[in-house]
């Protein structure tokens, strides 16, 4: 990447972040709610992107992990405990369950993990619904308080949006760190070529479990934000369709790309708005659009962009290579 391109990129990043902070100040409550929802769903989708996009494991249970996080937050904060404690519980639980659920992935073909997680997703829904003593069952838990962050109350929509945005920022930084670390490299290696990864000393089992567990834990983080966002939860939103929605978000945005979940969540949250004029047909159009996109580019929208950029880069590189080749051939 040339230096100017790098500066452009930084400038673009700063502009987007500034826009996310400043623009919503004039938004109405609905706009803020939608943006907060986007931030929360992005976190969940980022977790799934780690599992699916980087480590290549299909999970149909991300919605269930969001549910576990949401219930941890709802149950604990309505009992007067702080949200941060709920966050801790949610992360630990989701991490542990994710770790255990990852085991089948080690034993069998990839797509079987999809079935195991699908089963888990339904089981989690049944527990949320049936264990009234803990989750208040189908009636759900209402009056979930919003937290005080560093002494600021986040009851009103704008502060709560900043809380969600801040959380997204922290998670993004952590994720950025993770995928740039040797772990991130190992995740990519086990997605691309597990046999070769093994021969390079990479413990594919441990990394697979880690990718799955960390991805699940991020689902839990999203859940602990979701509960105070809606201030009421019942089991219905955490059924299989949320897991499918999250999967679509990751795929549509671009699995394996850092910004894929941001884009995918934005499309999923805002799409009903954009397609409003089509009335009842918007989900149908969404489904058709997803199929067409997948046919054209299985790596999603960012995949198209990436293809375009790498074509340009290849052209530049082949010129470079021609020079290098002549140098190599004349070398003694």
């Amino acid at each position, binding site marked *: 990447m040339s230096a100017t391109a790098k500066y452009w990129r930084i400038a673009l990043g700063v502009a987007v972040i500034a826009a996310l902070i400043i623009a919503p100040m004039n938004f109405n409550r*609905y706009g803020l709610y939608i943006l907060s929802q986007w931030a929360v769903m992005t976190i969940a989708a980022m977790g799934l992107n780690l599992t699916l996009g980087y480590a290549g494991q299909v999970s149909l249970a991300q919605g269930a992990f969001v549910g576990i996080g949401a219930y941890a937050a709802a149950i604990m904060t309505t009992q007067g405990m702080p949200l941060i404690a709920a966050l801790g519980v949610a992360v630990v639980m989701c991490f542990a369950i994710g770790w255990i659920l990852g085991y089948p992935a080690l034993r069998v073909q990839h797509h079987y993990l999809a079935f195991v997680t699908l089963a888990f997703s339904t089981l989690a829904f049944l527990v949320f*619904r049936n264990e009234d003593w803990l989750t208040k*069952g189908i*009636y759900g838990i209402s009056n979930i308080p919003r937290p005080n962050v560093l002494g600021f109350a986040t009851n009103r929509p704008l502060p709560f949006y900043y809380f969600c945005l801040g959380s997204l920022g922290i998670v993004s930084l952590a994720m950025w760190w993770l995928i740039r670390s040797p772990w991130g490299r190992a995740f990519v290696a086990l997605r691309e070529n597990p046999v070769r990864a093994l021969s390079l000393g990479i413990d594919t089992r441990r990394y697979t479990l880690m990718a799955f567990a960390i991805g699940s834990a991020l689902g839990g983080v999203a859940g602990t934000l979701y509960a105070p966002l809606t201030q*009421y939860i*019942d089991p*219905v939103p955490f059924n299989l369709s949320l897991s499918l929605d999250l999967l679509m978000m990751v795929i549509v945005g671009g699995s394996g790309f850092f910004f894929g979940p941001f884009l995918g969540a934005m499309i999923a949250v805002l799409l009903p708005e954009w397609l409003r004029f089509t009335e009842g047909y918007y989900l149908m159009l969404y489904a058709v659009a997803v199929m067409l996109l997948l046919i054209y580019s299985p790596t999603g929208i960012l995949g198209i962009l990436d293809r375009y950029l790498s074509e340009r880069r290849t052209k530049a590189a082949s010129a470079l290579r021609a020079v290098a080749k002549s140098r190599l051939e004349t070398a003694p």
Partner: protein
Amino acid sequence: MRSRIFAGLLLAAVSAGAAFAQGGPIKLADVAELSGGGATVGNNWKNGIDLAIEEINAKGGLLGRKLEVTHADSQSNPGVARAQVQKALDNEPYVLLGPGYSGSVKVTSPLAAEAGIAQIMGGEAAELTQGGNKFLFRTSFGQQSSMPKVAKYIHDELKAKSVAIVWVNNDFGKGGRDVITKEFAKYNIKIAADISTEAGQADFAADVSKIKAAAPDAVFIYLNEEESARILKELKRQAITVPLVGETTLVGQKVVELAGDAANGARGHVGLTTDAPVDLVKAFREKFVKKYNYVPDHNGLKGYLAIYMIKATTEKMGKVDAKRFADTLHGLTIKAASEPGILMDVTFDEKGDIDRQGFLVEIVEGKQVVKQVLPKLN
């Protein structure tokens, strides 16, 4: 001749001007379960609303103004419902319609109350109107008013000492089951079996064999229409002959259609149904079938009524006043004689609960037969 044309033009100009002066159409906002698990509920509700609005607009609108509604999809998800209601409220509608799921009502009603906008919804869970919300109105009996009638009937008329309860495990079924369980406790009726079923369940063999093993004096069935039909068939197959009692969803025409002979003998309390032996309701049903090509369930009726509740309340106020709407509707009695669209006389109490005539019916040879009319309380 000339003067008549002139007068006509003048009249048209004046009325157009009047409509303009009134400030355009009256905006209503509907948020309903148009997709997801509650799609049947939401689409019936929506169609009922559209039908009523079409009728009113065809007759010149409400106080001379057209009604206009926007429909938003909650995807049967309380989180989305909240977002959509928030959005609807930001546009300051005259009245908010929906949602139908009790959970979605629970999460959205504080928002409407905060905005001071009346919300007419389809939820039936008992607790919805118990929280002191001054802006929330039902379109049908809450379970807290229908279940006691059923329990009383089971105790007084059937003299049952033990009852098996079959319910669908969602907020509708669980709500009904919890209320009637309390009612049975009051009458010292033993619950012989407490059977939860899934929405969309096709196979009731195991559930019915449990009922058979429990040998109750009566069975209380609280399922949606399709599942009701399936369990009735299975009950007949396993030769269970004790009385089968339920609510609107057990004895509706649709159940009879789907269950055939097996529906005979089923009885239940009917609050709001397209099968009610009331001429206006029959006429509604015909209009609905003509427009949409299918027989609506009670959610279609609820959506229709919601619009006529708005009409009656607004006409009572004499002007479109969102602030005073809720106050006016509290304690209001709407007579079908003066407002045929309301179909049956109805009164709203201070909590937003509904009071209306009800019926106890039994299916005899594929037809609903009214065994008892439960009068309006006041």
